[in-house]
């Protein structure tokens, strides 16, 4: 079990930030999609820059062992053209309406929100529908 402790700690920090930065608030997401405040854009842009710097440093250690022993390599997405923008678009509609993406759904569930639990149930149903229709999608 000790092996999983770092993930619990990191997840905890991530959840804390999602609430304290108000990313898990519908109000902030509406503000973002109407370009009325820099706050959300600042978060996303500075997160990307920080991750980029971190990953650039890590690239020097490609093939070396991670703390768990598996060798370090930068994750790559599967090839594809239609599924990425189309799936993203469908997700974006849901996000724009209800103002929570998956990370914030979990964080909000932690605050005891039953509405967030309903959102999770909905998204599990969506995952189920995807699983059933996967072969027939473009």
């Amino acid at each position, binding site marked *: 079990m000790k092996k999983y402790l770092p993930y619990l700690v*990191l*997840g905890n920090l*991530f959840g804390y930030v999602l609430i304290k930065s108000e990313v898990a608030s519908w109000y902030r997401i509406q503000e973002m999609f109407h370009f009325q405040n820099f706050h959300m854009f600042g978060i996303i842009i500075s997160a990307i820059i920080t991750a980029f710097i971190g990953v650039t440093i890590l690239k020097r250690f490609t093939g070396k062992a991670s703390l768990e022993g598996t060798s370090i390599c930068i994750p790559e997405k599967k090839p594809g053209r239609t599924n990425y923008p189309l799936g993203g*678009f469908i997700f974006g509609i849901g996000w724009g309406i209800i103002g929570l993406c998956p990370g914030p759904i979990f964080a909000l569930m932690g605050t005891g929100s039953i509405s967030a639990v309903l959102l999770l149930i909905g998204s599990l149903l969506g995952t189920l529908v995807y699983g059933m229709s996967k072969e027939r999608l473009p």
Partner: protein
Amino acid sequence: MPTLYEMLVSPWPWYVSGPIIGLMVPLLILIGNRSFGISQNLEHICAMAKPSVISIKLFNYDWRTSRWSIVFAVGVMLGGLLAGVIFANPEPIQLSQATLDMLAQRNIAAPSQFNPPEIFTLNFQNSILLLTSGLLIGFGTRYAAGCTSGHAITGISTLQIQSVYAVIGIFAGGLIAANYITPIVGV
């Protein structure tokens, strides 16, 4: 200087929050060569439950190999409990004036809670709205193989073109929904 308690309670500015979120990507690689992303858990939860009535290929894998990801999500919930309940910010969210004006026009009150009671109070209409939005979020993120964390943060910072496509789709959907759909559904 604010005290530690004040720092834990008050909202965090973007230049503190963003870099912490960004650090998740290299730290998860460093710890165990893991790819930062939340929505993969939706698949893991389905695989755990493994609906036996219908056989779905997508969920036929050993979710135990992704235990780290479930533990991470449990951590996110604990973080929510700490930040939203134990160290909750008593002040309302400080929105821009433009947003406050827009909300007033749509008959939505200025924030008094973290999320608007107009949509998050559980009644029949809101429950349908929450379930439907969830459905779109679940289907979309799995079809796109990632959400904001996996694509906008991880994918873009590791220079993957697929994530650029996904993020364009996400923002297009979000813009349309926030500008044209939310006013129709009454929020």
